[in-house]
């Protein structure tokens, strides 16, 4: 194996890793604030990928142009899901939360298949087509842009959560809901905000991903399992943990792709989940 190939793999692994991280950060945010795992998170990703695809195919909008609109629409979608569904089930039995998001997952996946069919769509010629060549290494533009976008988005969210008053309220609710309530924080609005932000993140991820990945009804299932592993490895609820874990997993899946059939490249990643939750249930940087 040549050094170039190795660097090539590492770069592509890093690129995917940032995308995994961006998807996982949404999950981590909702879990951190509400203690709820959104089982429909992958379908949020799928929805934003379809939105990006149709904006391109029907409206002629480049994914880079439609990205802010997709993110904004997904923010609204997340808030709507919170008010219409999640608000009714939180505070009840844990299984009701699990079933509610699980039902949403089944519904969204089936709706996509019903409306758009089981076909695979892809965006061929966008602003981000082509690739850079640096030395002997090929850097595909869509992946580079996706990695950069994921990093920017993560940094933005980080700044929001750790540098603003709103972020303080969000962290307060996540640390001690009752104490936050007594301080006059409207926990309901904070919950809605966390759903909106998480959905916007996954919206950005979907928009960037649609540049170079097929869009089909079950696409979310592929990425959400990875996102669970990422969140578990990073520590449930930890945003910085999700970033680190995303990168580790991105690199791990390209390396394992060298040794096993490409369809099996995620199996080692899944094994990693079991190893982490069994040996170090708090993940790398998690708190409980």
């Amino acid at each position, binding site marked *: 194996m040549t050094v170039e190939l190795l660097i090539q793999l590492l770069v592509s692994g890093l690129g995917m890793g940032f995308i995994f991280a961006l998807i996982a950060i949404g999950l981590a945010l909702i879990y951190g604030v509400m203690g709820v795992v959104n089982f429909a998170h992958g379908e949020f990703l799928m929805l934003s990928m379809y939105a990006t695809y149709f904006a391109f195919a029907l409206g002629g909008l480049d994914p880079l142009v439609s990205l802010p609109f997709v993110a904004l629409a997904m923010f609204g979608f997340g808030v709507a899901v919170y008010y219409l569904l999640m608000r009714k089930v939180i505070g009840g039995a844990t299984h009701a939360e699990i079933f509610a998001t699980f039902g949403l997952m089944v519904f969204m996946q089936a709706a996509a298949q019903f409306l758009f069919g089981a076909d695979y769509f892809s965006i061929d010629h966008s602003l981000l087509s082509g690739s850079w060549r640096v030395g002997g290494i090929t850097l595909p533009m869509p992946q580079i842009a996706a990695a950069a976008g994921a990093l920017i988005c993560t940094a933005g969210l980080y700044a929001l959560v750790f540098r603003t008053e709103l972020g303080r309220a969000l962290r307060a609710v996540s640390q001690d809901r009752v104490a936050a309530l007594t301080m006059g924080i409207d926990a309901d609005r904070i919950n809605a905000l966390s759903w909106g932000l998480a959905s916007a993140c996954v919206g950005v991820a979907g928009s960037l991903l649609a540049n170079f990945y097929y869009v089909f009804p079950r696409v979310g299932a592929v990425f959400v399992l990875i996102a669970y592993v990422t969140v578990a490895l990073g520590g449930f609820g930890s945003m910085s943990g999700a970033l680190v874990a995303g990168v580790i997993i991105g690199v791990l899946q390209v390396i394992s792709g060298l040794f096993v059939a490409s369809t099996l490249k995620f199996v080692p990643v899944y094994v990693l989940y079991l190893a982490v939750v069994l040996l170090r*249930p708090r993940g790398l940087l998690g708190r409980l």
Partner: protein
Amino acid sequence: MNQTSRAIPVAGLRPTSSMGHAVAFAVLAAILLLLPLALGGRPFELRLLTIIFLYATMGQAWNILGGYAGQTSLGHGLFFGLGAYTSTVAAVTFGLNPWLGAVLAVLVSGAAGWLIGLPCFRLRSHYFVIATLIVAESVHLLFSEWSFVGAAIGLELPIRPAGWLNFEFHRNKVPYYYIALAMLTSVTLFVVWMERSKIGHVLKAIRDDEDAARSLGFSPLRFKLIAMVISAGILGFCGTFYAQYVLLIDPPSVLSPSISVVIALIAIFGGIGTVAGPIIGSVVLVTISEYSRIYFSGGGRNLDLLIYGALIMLVAAYCPGGIMSLVRRVYARNRKA
């Protein structure tokens, strides 16, 4: 009444009179036993009922772990698939009789349940749910690549002379109906017994408060494993039944994640932790699924899952106890009036 209403109550409706119950059950049994005679020339209805019995059995099996022991598994299709593959591989490779294959399937699925449960039961709530998803998907991927089990193409069962001994019926599918009915009846009777036995009480105690159950001296791990092995073993048998019924299996038809989804949905929709729940769930959801296939014959359009998903969201938001909790609420109101 108010103090106990939080715990999920036992079997269906409150007994009115044991005489009335016995008569009702006798009538129901007679109808179910004689129905195939009436359905002689109607393959669609016969198939519908057979599939309803099969899925109700699978829902009952899920319920033992998910409803009574409170361990939500979204990967239970794995045990169904393992059962189907075990008896089929045994038949294809060693020419084993399907009934012996079914026994082997129960053992393999049960053992798989034990092996998976041993590490995974150390995890709680979401961590456990995700682990079940991930284990099932890993096995699904591995079987799609493993040439010994036919990889993505799957396996065809050897065609044998039709008959009870060979667990194969070609022109007349009525025996499948009776086998499925027998499966559902015996599993349901087992659950009724289990609910009243010590195991059932300990499982419910673990579900309601694991630490309290441990402090009483019951090992949660041991009882969760018991529930898992029984649940997985039953699904193993269901897998063999399905393989013998369709005579062709491949990863999408027996190991796909949507099977796990349907198994769990049936119990959740009908009412988790109740005997009648999975049966009601199966009657409603399988009927929706089979008829939507006819009326909206857009193959692969998944209209049934669209309806399932919407129903589950409604159930989670408005009656987390499933249809059975609605039935009970209405019944309680009528008794008061």
